[in-house]
């Protein structure tokens, strides 16, 4: 019997690799102009229009509390759909999709605690959708 595997899309923030569960609406999009929103959490970067939908752009660095000063001319996001709404995680670089048989839990972390190990034993943290939405206060 084979173990049940989960599929993830990998992406980079700086040199660090992260993973997002494969969901409906996953796509890497490059864009330049973003609509800014006043009086909003710093974790929300803005809005873009893509394929008929308004995509809420999430500042992944702010979400993960990563301090990297790297400004790309061309912005890129990894989109996903949750409950009929579209979101995009700002990423520095896209990666491949892979199936993972085993995930682990980092007890020291309150959010984004799930991870898996790559073949070369590197930890890749998973950005759970519920964690993302709770962090940007969508549930408030």
């Amino acid at each position, binding site marked *: 019997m084979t173990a049940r595997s989960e599929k993830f899309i990998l992406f980079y923030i700086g040199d660090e690799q992260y993973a997002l569960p494969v969901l409906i609406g996953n796509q890497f999009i490059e864009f330049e*102009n973003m*609509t*800014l*929103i*006043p*009086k*909003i959490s710093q974790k*929300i970067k803005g*809005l*873009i*229009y893509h*394929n*008929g*939908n*308004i995509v*809420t752009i999430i500042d992944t660095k702010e979400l993960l509390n990563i301090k990297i000063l790297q400004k790309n001319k061309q912005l890129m996001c990894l989109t996903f759909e949750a409950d*009929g*709404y*579209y979101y995009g995680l700002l990423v520095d670089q896209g990666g491949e999709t892979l199936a993972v048989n085993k995930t682990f839990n980092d007890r020291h972390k309150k959010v984004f605690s799930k991870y898996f190990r790559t073949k070369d034993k590197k930890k890749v943290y998973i950005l759970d959708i519920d964690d993302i939405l709770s962090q*940007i206060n*969508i549930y*408030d």
Partner: protein
Amino acid sequence: MISTKYKDLYLSTTKEQFKKLSTLLLYLEKKPASQNLIENIFRLIHSMKGAAATMSYKKTVNLLHAMESVVDAAYNGDLRINQKILNSFFDILDILKQNFNSIDKHNKEIVLTKQIKLIKTLLNQKNTKDASKQKKEKHILGSLPSVAELTVSTDKLDDIGNSLDDLLINAMKIKNKAKGSEDVDFLKVCVDNDKILANLRRQLEKIRIVPLKDVLSSLPYLVREIARNENKQVEIVIKDHNISLDKAIVDEIVEILIQLLKNAVAHGIASKPVKGKIIVDFSLVGDRMYISVEDNGQGINWQDILALAIKNKIISSQKAKTMTIDQIKKFIFQAGISKGRNLNTVSGRGIGLSLVKAKTEELGGSIEVISKINKGTKFIIDLPQPLSVFRSIIFNLLGYVFALPLDFIDKIINLDDVKNLNKTKIFTYKKNKYKLISLLNIFDIKNFEPLYKYIALINYKGSKVALPIIRQVQEDELIMKKAPLIFKNNKYIKGVAVSAQGQAILVLDINNLI
């Protein structure tokens, strides 16, 4: 068994048929001898039976078959429709509803043996003596026209709508290029395309638009059932004024109405010999829609509500002494306040009105209540009307791009010189005074004292306001899109629209800005 992938289609079709059946039975209660009604009910039950048989829901088929036999007997004159038969049918509607829920959630039917048996006993009332005389030559089905209906999920319509929006945006871009090219033929083709696409979008919108009366047709049945359980007599009047709305919004409104009607029957209308009356009234005023639900019941005693709030420790007795009626009114929309003495399946858990308020606010609206002892209670819901394609002014404010629908704007004034209006409260134009709106204050944008070049004069619901604009006022056609969840608690932004350039633009909510 047929694949469960057809289950959703079956359930959505059955839901509509179920609603029609409830309505027809209510009419039949008023006119029990109407052959036309009996014929239509037969046709509906027969169609529901066919759908259940296709899905191999055998218990459902047997129950519907038994119901069909009763209606068939009534049509042929072998059986007279009486209150006992109607009550049994109404009871069975409840069971069928539970059955459909079970199919939906657990993928299996519930046990229906008892109901089938009950229906079969109704056939014992058959008038066998006259049967041969009154028997119709032709069976009902033979004379019925067949109607083909197609059920399409709103998700699929959304997908088509999104693709069409993309196409519309591209067409706008091409039209703008054509305007600059001086090629008249090219421009003419673009203008024609524009008309075709706009027409296509309107047609698509029309598919989503349903008459309120169709969707609300199940409410009289609901009220009848609650009233029957509560041993009350209640009449419901729905004034829909032939309004039609987007099906998705109507579904949300129905949920709100169901809760308000449950409350009105269970708590509003008193158990007295006088017949209770509930009036549901819809009206469209400007860009708002108002829905009122009014009963002629016992009214709400606000002191009782205050006492409950104290008892449930929502407020201290000390604080309660200084509360105004308007403040007390807010308590009934809080979870934990219930006027019902007993908990029952209808209402009385004290969460109903809090859900109504939450749902109304989700739709960008508000709710208020007016009540007089022994006169009745009226709930008024104020909702924004959804926009689709609209002309708007678009302007920039320190990097933020806002839009305001043109319908609200009286005039845009180009100021002779740029002006610092940050401390100005009132703007005077041709002896008319306009209250100045500061988006900087509203959106908490600090440390900027911009100089304004334009002022948009707005006359909205009798209020005169002026909106200062820094620069770059454009007028354009925008397409309203589904607002992201992040705007759920932002009352100043009505939603997000898209321009011809494919840019997302924040649409201001004039109602709340004022």
